[in-house]
């Protein structure tokens, strides 16, 4: 069984500090949804509000259509996986997984069957008798998932559970988490500051900044079509060229920057005279016969990719050339002119 999660104008305040600011969102049943944002952006607060450890100051959380006001964490159809996993060190793996069933008063025999089933799911079939400290990091991870799944939650909440693992294991666990989610078919809500995790695993991503959900969408949409300055600069690398809108026409805007008049898409419908930033991805930036001038400061060759650092006046810029692009990378110290395709740049309102 799975359920949708609705945040209806949820605000959470701690004294004068607003941790979550009017969050409005519906997470579909069976969806893998990620909250992505820097630390302190309020994403963990949102998760703890959904799980019931924090009550919203304003607004309501609805799970499966039911208002969760006043319902304690142990009575919600959610299960939370903690950042440090919070496995019980004095219990065996099997007892950890069976804990939720034990508090529900299930008989040892019935419990055992379910625990065995879950041990199979996480591929630790013969390790049920081990203690937690005998397991590797990845195995602990999987035990934490099994313990949460044992109580058959409709929504699984994950609070950066991969952050303690090394890079290789983290990448492996991404695939594994996604596979487990598709097998059990329940809603996963995942918290991360790692855009790689969010982009690879999620059906949709909510990008958060300073308590506000800035943009919600599929990973590709968020990367290709950021709607705010924060999203554009936080998700993926981006070159920001500040200026003022000079003219608009047919969904495009021309921005008067320090490097001349540059054109990009105008998704927010900016009007001439407004302060703006033009964002262009490193992979969209190219050496061209015409454009604005820059000096090549450094080149890092990585095989399939070449990272090129440039300086245009005081502004550092990044350019990325793929091995399959059939473009000849410049040399350090070269004086080049840069350009990009209009539809690959985005003009967004500049923040205060």
């Amino acid at each position, binding site marked *: 069984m799975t359920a949708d999660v609705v945040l209806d104008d949820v605000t959470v305040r701690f004294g004068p500090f607003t941790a979550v600011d009017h969050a409005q969102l519906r997470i579909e049943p069976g969806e893998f949804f990620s909250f992505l944002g820097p630390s302190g952006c309020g994403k963990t607060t949102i998760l703890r509000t959904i799980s019931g450890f924090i009550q919203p100051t304003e607004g309501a959380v609805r799970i499966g259509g039911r208002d969760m006001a006043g319902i304690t964490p142990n009575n919600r159809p959610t299960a939370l996986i903690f950042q440090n996993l919070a496995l*019980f060190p004095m219990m065996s793996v099997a007892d950890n997984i069976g804990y939720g069933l034990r508090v529900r008063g299930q008989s040892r025999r019935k419990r055992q069957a379910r625990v065995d089933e879950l041990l199979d799911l996480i591929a630790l079939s013969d390790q049920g008798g081990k203690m937690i400290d005998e397991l590797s990091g990845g195995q602990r991870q999987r035990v934490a998932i099994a313990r949460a799944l044992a109580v058959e939650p409709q929504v699984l909440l994950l609070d950066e559970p991969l952050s303690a693992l090394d890079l290789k294991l983290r990448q492996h666990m991404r695939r594994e988490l996604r596979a487990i989610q598709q097998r059990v078919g329940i809603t996963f809500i995942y918290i991360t500051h790692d855009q790689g995790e969010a982009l690879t695993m999620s059906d949709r991503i909510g990008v958060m900044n300073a308590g506000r959900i800035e943009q919600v969408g599929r990973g590709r949409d968020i990367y290709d079509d950021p709607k705010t300055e924060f999203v554009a600069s936080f998700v993926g690398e981006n070159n920001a060229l500040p200026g003022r809108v000079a003219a608009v026409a047919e969904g495009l805007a021309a921005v008067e920057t320090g490097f001349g008049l540059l054109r990009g898409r105008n998704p927010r419908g900016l009007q001439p005279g407004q302060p703006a930033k033009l964002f262009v991805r490193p992979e969209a930036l190219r050496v061209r016969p015409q454009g604005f001038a820059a000096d090549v400061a450094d080149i890092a060759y990585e095989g399939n990719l070449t990272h090129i650092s440039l300086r245009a006046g005081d502004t550092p810029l990044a350019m990325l050339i793929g091995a399959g692009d059939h473009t000849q990378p410049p040399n350090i110290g070269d004086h080049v002119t840069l350009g990009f395709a209009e539809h690959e740049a985005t003009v967004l309102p500049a923040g205060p």
Partner: protein
Amino acid sequence: MTAATGHWLVLALPVLVLAFFVISARLEKRSIASFWRRNGTAVSIYLLGAVGLWAIFMIVLPQLFMVEMSFRPKLPPTQMGGPRDIYTLQNYKYFLFGSTSSTDSWNVIHLRAFAITIVASVLITLFNFAFCYPLAFYMAQVATAARVRVLLLMLIAPYWINEVLRAFALRVIFAGSGVLNRALQGMGLITEPFDFLGADVAMYVGLSYAYLLLLVFPLYNAVESLDKRQIEAARDLGAPWWHIHLFIVMPHAKPGIASGCTLVFMLTSGALAAPLVLGGPRTLWFTPIVYDRFYQAFNWPQGAAYAFILLLTCVAFVLAVLRLSRLSLGEMTK
């Protein structure tokens, strides 16, 4: 064997123990030279001297002499070391069977006092645990740092008052015309003053109160080291509050519970001030009996024997409980 040889044996034992440690250090290839090198001459001499003196003169020798004394008969000073000063079990026999002139086959009075002391100490320890655990949990997991400081101060401050004074203060409260009786009479709950001292209420309150603090601190430390998220995880998985305490917090705090309860049990069973000051006229607690052996009967060997019976029983009891709860002595100090 005469007492003279016994004395030599007692003095030789610490030397033998020291020799054992030196030899075992040698066997493990831990050279004394490296100890010297690591600490420097001055510090090394201080460490060895201080630890050695402390262990031998404060702990080992007095106890050994008491053990030795407990096996000797009570003799006038002129006959000490004489032909009648031989090792005997008569002091231990007296505890079990009483004097030879007694008609009872068992020394009922002393044995009963002994049993009451052990059982009551267990009950007081359990009561103290039930009282301290919620407090320790609140301080360790719920309260803010500022509130914990205030609470700790409030807990510690009463213990600046010495034990005897505290006991007499309780006597003032519980006496026939004391504060408590007058308050109860004033409220019309009782017409005649209740004999709290005779019913041993005052003594048990005094005993519970005396070592309360020694349980709060180990419990507080043990519960404090529990990750809050473990409690949250259990709650999230649907555990009711009592289940979390019984199966998450207490197993984690087991070493602290064990060390605190051991301390309280040992000290309560050996407490002297509260039973002496607060005990009723018919009260028989074991420690005043031991005290009487020394200062009323002037029978030091018998007093030593009684004290050792109490000590050994308590140690055996504690070790048995630790064994049952699958704890080692090493874990308790964690």
